[in-house]
């Protein structure tokens, strides 16, 4: 899975979230901020991460989610890191 695949998956998740600015979503990039750019409430971010687990068939650690930033790139990093655990 590439970073672009993960970004596409995140966009797919966000398309079903009522609170997301769908116009802003059309221009989303890794640099976009879920909260500042897409209008997502901070409390909703956890739900997006939970949906990302299902979307990508992964299981994230609570500590990793605690440390997560609000940029789209942070979630992509988490997905990439989790699918390829450190050896």
């Amino acid at each position, binding site marked *: 899975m590439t970073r672009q695949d993960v970004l596409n998956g995140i966009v797919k998740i966000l398309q079903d979230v009522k609170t997301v600015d769908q116009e802003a979503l059309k221009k989303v990039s890794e640099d976009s901020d879920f909260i500042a750019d897409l209008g997502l409430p901070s409390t909703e971010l*956890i739900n997006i991460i*939970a949906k990302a687990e299902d979307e990508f068939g992964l299981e994230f650690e609570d500590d990793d*989610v*605690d440390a997560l930033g609000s940029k789209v790139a942070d979630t992509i990093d988490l997905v990439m890191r989790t699918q390829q655990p450190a050896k």
Partner: protein
Amino acid sequence: MTETERNSWISKRPNEILIHGPSKLYIDKYLWFDPTEGIISCYTTQSKDTADHFDIFRGVDIIESAGQTGVSACAIMESVKQDKSIDELKKHFRLAFVGMGKARFHGFVKVNETLLNVCKIHQHKFRQMLISSKVYKAPAGMDVAEYFKELRIEKIDQLQVPEGFMLVAEMEDMIGRSVPIGKVYPNP
């Protein structure tokens, strides 16, 4: 979680679980708890709660009472999950009521009246708990804690609120979270 463990949790005083000081703590007692189902608490309003507000308990404080009940469930579950005591948990996490969707009010609560907070758990994920809540006002003079002392239900939806209770408020999408101390979340 065994029945003994559940009973052990609900026998705790709210100030053992929550970090709120006495003037802002709106739970007297936990009445029932199930880790996948929900939690029930009660609170009798005092004159300090309705002072300067024409002897009426503020709507925002009704929400707070329900929120504190939900956060209590979140704290218990985090304690169990991390296998840490609540005191140990409090050293690392701020147990907080952080968000809410809709609230509908159907009635009001006066001084010395008792609230019954019935909170249903919908999700507990990544230290965050999503609940909905119904708040009832108990009939005058009823000892709610005593009445529900022997409450034996398996699902929170099985709760039959006795005649005379009045639905005061309903809340959806309430969020409690164990926020790591030092972590600053951006404003929504």
